[in-house]
């Protein structure tokens, strides 16, 4: 970048300030925004696998079985139950259905542990194996 010296010194402090101001605006707008008001039944339905179809949630599946289950979800929302209560009752009423979002338990821990292990190993290699102290003959400087 070969800006004239004057422009560079101007950018020297204007630019970071402008960046900060824009970032602050974005952060404030996003943190004060109302949470998205999704259809509650749909949100719950998306977590439950439709037992009659394959791999789809009951909110997405066009099957009548899924429609029945969604009807039950709406009914329970009408009764003012909590999300967890609704899910529990749904699982009890339709024993062949399954959560699409696996609960965190001992038998599912590996599901999170394996990718985490890859991440940790990768970070370890990057920091401690690949980035070695610079050999003496090199003229570069270690940061």
């Amino acid at each position, binding site marked *: 970048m070969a800006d004239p010296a004057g422009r560079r010194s101007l950018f020297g402090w204007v630019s970071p300030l402008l960046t900060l101001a824009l970032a602050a605006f974005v952060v404030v707008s996003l943190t004060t925004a109302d949470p998205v008001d999704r259809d509650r039944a749909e949100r719950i339905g998306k977590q439950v696998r439709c037992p009659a179809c394959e791999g789809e949630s009951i909110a997405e599946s066009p099957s009548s079985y899924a429609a029945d289950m969604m009807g039950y979800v709406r009914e329970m929302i009408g009764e003012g139950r909590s999300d967890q209560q609704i899910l529990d009752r749904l699982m009890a009423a339709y024993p062949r259905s399954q959560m699409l979002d696996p609960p965190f338990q001992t038998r599912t821990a590996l599901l999170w542990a394996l990718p985490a292990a890859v991440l940790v190993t990768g970070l370890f290699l990057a920091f401690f194996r690949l980035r070695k102290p610079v050999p003496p003959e090199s003229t570069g400087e*270690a940061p």
Partner: protein
Amino acid sequence: MLSLAGTLAVWTALVAAGWLAVAGWRAARDPVAPSASIVSLRRSVLVMVLAALGAMVVLEAALLANDFTVSYVANHHSRHTPFPFNIATAWAALEGSIVLWGLVLAAYAYAVWRRATARGAQPDSLDWGALAAIGAVGVFFFGLMVTVANPFEVCTEAAARSCTASSPLPFSRAVGPADGLGPNPLLQNHLLMAIHPPLLYLGYVGLTVPFAYGISALALRRSGPAWLRRSGLWTRVAWVFLTAGITLGAWWAYEVLGWGGYWAWDPVENASFMPWLVATAFLHSSLVQERRGMLEAWNFVLVIGAFSLTILGTFLTRSGVIASVHSFTQSAIGPALLGFLVVVTVGSFALFASRAQQISSPPRLESLSSREGGFLLNNLLLTVYAMVVLTGTLYPLALEAFTGSEVGVGRPFFDRMAVPISFALLLAMGIGPALPWRVARARVVWPRVHLPLQIALAAGVLVIITATRVGYVVMAVIAGSWVVAVAAGRLLSQARRSARSRGANAWRMIPGVVRSDRGFWGGQLAHAGVALAAVAIACTANLSQSLDRVEMAPGDRVEFAGYELVHTGVSTTRTPNRLKSTAHVEVWKDERIEGLAEPALSRFETSALPIATPGIHHTLAQDLYLSVTRIDEEAITLRAATAPLQWVLWLGGLTCAGGGLYSLAGRKRRRSGSVRPAVGARPGG
């Protein structure tokens, strides 16, 4: 008759593949390969590609001639399957898709051969070794075709609409049903289904070539830049097809499946996405080796991993172990694929381990904040991403197999894991190209990124003020504009520098700058495609509105998302193989009719479940997506959803593939017609 021809073709291809493996290995082992063994290689490649092509031609001929004595035709074809689906039936079911696999593999073998022996190319034992490895893979797939996945068996006992017993012996007494059931109804609903599988296969099978070069280099103890350059080129070829194939697959799901989405983290989608992630990682880490000589061992791991994942994906989707919308087949092919997968992974990694000593010990990184540090970050993220998809896909299977307990791992899990990784990737994609090699100092990097950063944030502010304050959308817009702005900034500053040295206008310099480094700028174009896709995904996932199941009698109106939908009636068309009921829905907005959407349900005589086809009203701002779950004269049950900026996703995916294609076009060595002759299209020109 056709059974005999097909069987002969497949056996010929099998023998040729074995011959190729032997001849390739002998030529590779000999430092000065005698011309006799080269001639032998050439013959085996030619015979294999012609025989594989012959098998496909015979299969198509049997389909077009309605020869129901051929088992594949009897079980997957019907006299009434319309054009072009009768052609596409050849790869719509298991055995035929293996024939396509063999053909693509043979075509790649031929392309590798042509490139290795092109004028000006230095024949190299690496090429012969790679051809040997391709031959060995070919032995497996052609072997499948003569055993557990034989499409050319002779039907010996026929039921009314299918073949109940068949024999692999071509001279058996042939009987055939008068007509068959036809291909899976889902697959004969849209033209994309005819194009998407071949594209995906070109990508999938293409990853065999970089793997073969990796194995060849390991076996011949030839680590260094030679195998890497070849693997890099062929990965790029495969990657372009894979990217386009995945995009068209998502498009097909959206246009045809009628559930309103384009990506469900279904095992078959994951099966194509995992090799894509690993191949993408390789495209980046290979640059580090090319430039700095580092990460060679890791690059071997990536090419072996990408190929293993394609076999794993084929196993998952073709063996029926996972019941999904895509696993329309079940057969004895499962154990064969699983065995091959074990042989490939164990064999390759054992070879890799035995050669570990010879792989040059890498110079170390001076600093993590550098271009190579950026590539490391990229590789780490892509690997973790692939690991998430892999564990999520395999976990339910493994858990059920080992403990018998069932657990569902679906969309919410994948979304929760994939979203943060994707954002991290986008940010890395923005900063990476702005970092210099070796060591990045703030005084070098800041001038390159401060303006793009402000442009990106300003784009976010604009979205907040004019459109939405939904966090994911705003962040996707910021991250996406950041990626594009950094690349554009680099382009402008290079053009300006080149203009200064020549005293010309900077804008005029842009084409020259781009042409001088097509690899880099093709990559930047691909990044821009990913950025577009990210914005589109954030919009469709967070801003869509939906309307669940409303009953509508003819004449009824319903308000939805600023539209008024009017059901005007139902029409029914009967074609020989299906009964299609179409609902006619007028789309009104501001007292004006904007369009007509026609969601439909088709009943195929072969399938109890009706197949829904959505009716989509496309506009620039959003799609209005209508589907019906019930349809009759009295009423329809309608579901509606909006998909904001949906078309941007297809644009992004194809731009991404286009970037890869452009970088291929920039390869220096000329290859007059030598790349993938069987496809008829050269990458770029």
